């Protein structure tokens, strides 16, 4: 499976190589350059496994504008939106936020637990 993928990628790579490396390598070295380049070119850094948005770039987001002289906003590319936007639907990640002290829910939870503990201790005395 992987082999077929690289095979389909190679032609594109070869084109890029010839334009870029022709300054440095002679025409006969293209094959060598090709082989070595597979080590040289950095593999695409593992991007966060992100479900692609259902709204493609360029689609107008209808019904959001409410000004007479305004227009409905147009969807941008997925990468142009802030990273946190794609984590909003991930329940685990949202819950993780409450474990960090810069979060209001963290402090509220802590306070509630402290109150419960106090009440428990008070009850024990009576």
């Amino acid at each position: 499976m992987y082999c077929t993928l690289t095979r389909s990628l190679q032609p594109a790579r070869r084109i890029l190589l010839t334009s870029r490396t022709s300054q440095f390598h002679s025409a006969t070295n293209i094959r060598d350059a090709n082989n070595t380049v597979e080590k040289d070119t950095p593999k695409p850094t593992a991007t966060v496994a992100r479900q692609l948005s259902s709204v493609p770039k360029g689609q107008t987001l209808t019904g959001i504008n409410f000004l007479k002289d305004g227009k409905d906003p147009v969807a941008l590319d997925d990468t142009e939106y802030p990273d946190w936007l794609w984590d909003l639907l991930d329940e685990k990640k949202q819950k993780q936020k409450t474990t960090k002290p810069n979060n209001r829910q963290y402090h509220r939870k802590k306070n509630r637990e402290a109150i419960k503990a106090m009440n428990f201790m008070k009850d024990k005395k009576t």
Partner: protein
Amino acid sequence: MSKKPQAAEALVRILVSAGKASPQPPVGPALGARGVKSMDFCKQFNDKTKNIVPETPIPTVITIKPDRTFTFVTKTPPTTFLLKRAAGIDKGAQKPGSEIVGKLSLKHVYEIAKIKQTDANLKHLSLESICGSIIGVAKSVGIQIVH
């Protein structure tokens, strides 16, 4: 040296359709009861909202001073209104949670959050937290948010 405490300013919260304020209910009695000439308010309100698409509900807070003069503040349309319109539905779900009546993308949520952040009450909040509350509102209306 004691001063009489100033009579409290009255606050009136109303939801008015942009450009359609009229002395009739709901605006008329609410203001008239407090001694404010509703015609004055209507003119000022319609003037302020003339750039907004008609029939958009605009929450306003009218502060009525003891001498019957008033000032008012308009806010962004309700989130449920924006969500329903973006999803192309008229009414929310009868049983939100078990019923889904519309679907929106996170990109819609982002754009709506940008509108909401222009509101004075929400200016200090991060876009992230506003998006979070919009997703919560969508849940209560029966709109599913997807990627």
